[in-house]
């Protein structure tokens, strides 16, 4: 484990040095990503200059939800970007190289794919988080603060799990990874509103198929004081099961790769 972290750190340092070879490009790309995330905030800001609430959620509460999703998505994307680049890794035959090295291939995929610039939207996330906190009347008890961090953590793992599925799919078919965008980018984009505003059908999908509600709707109810059931704050822990299933799929994929070699 310690060795794993050390090697991941090494990769990060190498990747950063590579990125700094193109400093201007790096900062402009990051600025672009920041702006796109910021547009999401502007949208909510202007929309709520005309409307006062959505299904009982106020402006500040929506901002909290938006910022938590932005933060967890961009942190997950930054660290697990290797999964997203994986179809290229397989196509170029780089996965073979990873298999002839005495460390876990997943660690190498994650390490070599690390991309700091992807973290830029997290900056928007932090800004909006503070604006949201100022604009809502949440009483920040220890339990609620913990709920916030659990939501973030759960969100990061949930998105990382989805990226892992995207990568695992590459073992079977290189071309069909586009459909995963609905589940990753779609969730980031539309998860800015609490899922219950979209109706019952989607709530069910987001609970039993991909457990988005575990990191968004349920803990949010506790966080905003809409329920006193503090059990809701622990829902994000349920993501562990989901990530475990994603990991199993990855393992199946690696095994498949080793038996077909392509």
């Amino acid at each position, binding site marked *: 484990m310690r*060795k794993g972290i*050390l*090697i991941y750190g*090494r*990769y990060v340092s*190498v990747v950063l*040095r*590579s990125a700094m*070879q*193109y400093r201007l490009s790096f900062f402009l790309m990051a600025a672009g990503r920041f702006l796109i995330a910021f547009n999401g905030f502007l949208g909510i800001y202007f929309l709520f200059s005309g409307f006062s609430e959505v299904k009982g959620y106020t402006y500040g509460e929506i901002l909290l939800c938006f910022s938590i999703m932005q933060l967890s998505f961009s942190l997950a994307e930054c660290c697990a970007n290797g999964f997203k680049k994986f179809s290229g890794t397989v196509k*170029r*035959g*780089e996965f*073979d*190289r990873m*298999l*002839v*090295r*005495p*460390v876990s291939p997943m660690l*190498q995929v994650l390490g070599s794919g690390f991309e700091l610039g992807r973290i830029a939207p997290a900056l928007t996330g932090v800004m909006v988080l503070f604006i949201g906190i100022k604009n809502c009347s949440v009483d920040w008890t220890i339990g609620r603060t913990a709920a916030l961090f659990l939501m973030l953590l759960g969100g990061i793992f949930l998105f990382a799990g989805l990226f892992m599925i995207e990568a695992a799919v590459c073992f079977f078919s290189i071309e069909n990874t586009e459909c995963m965008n609905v589940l990753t980018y779609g969730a980031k984009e539309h998860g800015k509103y609490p899922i219950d505003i979209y109706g019952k059908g989607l709530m069910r999908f987001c609970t039993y198929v991909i457990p988005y509600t575990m990191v968004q709707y349920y803990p949010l109810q506790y966080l905003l004081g809409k329920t006193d059931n503090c059990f809701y704050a622990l829902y994000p822990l349920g993501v562990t099961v989901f990530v475990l299933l994603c990991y199993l799929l990855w393992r199946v994929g690696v095994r498949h790769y*080793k*038996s*077909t*070699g*392509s």
Partner: protein
Amino acid sequence: MITMEGICKSYRIAKRNAGLKEACKSLFHRENETIEALSDVSFTIEDGEMVGYIGPNGAGKSSTIKILSGILTPDSGSCIVNGRTPWKDRIAHVREIGVVFGQRSQLWWDIPVIDSFELIKEIYSVETHDYHHNLEELTEMLNLKELLRTPVRQLSLGQRMRCEIAASLLHNPGILFLDEPTIGLDAVSKLAVRDFIKKRNREYGTTVILTTHDMQDIAALTNRVILIGKGRLLLDGTLDTLRQQAADLEGGEPSEELDKIVAKLYRGLDIL
């Protein structure tokens, strides 16, 4: 020591014709085509041997290398490298082998070569002392001194290949797989690479398995040649055996240039 016995490997490839109608059809019923990549391949390679592994494109060379390096699991047969089965004990196995893929790079494009080396050191957990010792020797033998501080994108192909080879040897493996190490290199670089491989084998007793289409590589480096075609092992012997075989097949003088001999063999054995 490397022993391969009765290794078989076949791929199933889904047959699909162009067109929407065919694509829809294939959703329900898929025709599979089985391709025998390797059938009943057996050989033994002693420690310190240098072996050339040749055959036309698609003969099964890279499948063999993949099996030997633990990337690919065969359907049947056994393979023992230094007492281990590569695909079962992959992590322990790959510590003792070095692999150079001639057409792919393991170095980071934008940063100096030495930085990539440091990362590889970490991945193989090479002791700092050993690492410096190996690096020094490789630098000397491959004449890398000027190159280490240069970003890879500024290196010529020949310079890069020397660095690639060094990168694969930093953990001092006993077995080295070279997959077309001289592809695209100019004459000077080719000679440098060949010289190095020869020297490494002589001084460290490194076992070398080399796949290539360049018959001069084979002539310069190896005594033993294994010829594979359509997944079958067709010949295992010296260059002279190769010559003899070609002569037996088509008659004529046995002492032609190597490329012609090999072309004759490929055609004569009907493995193209």
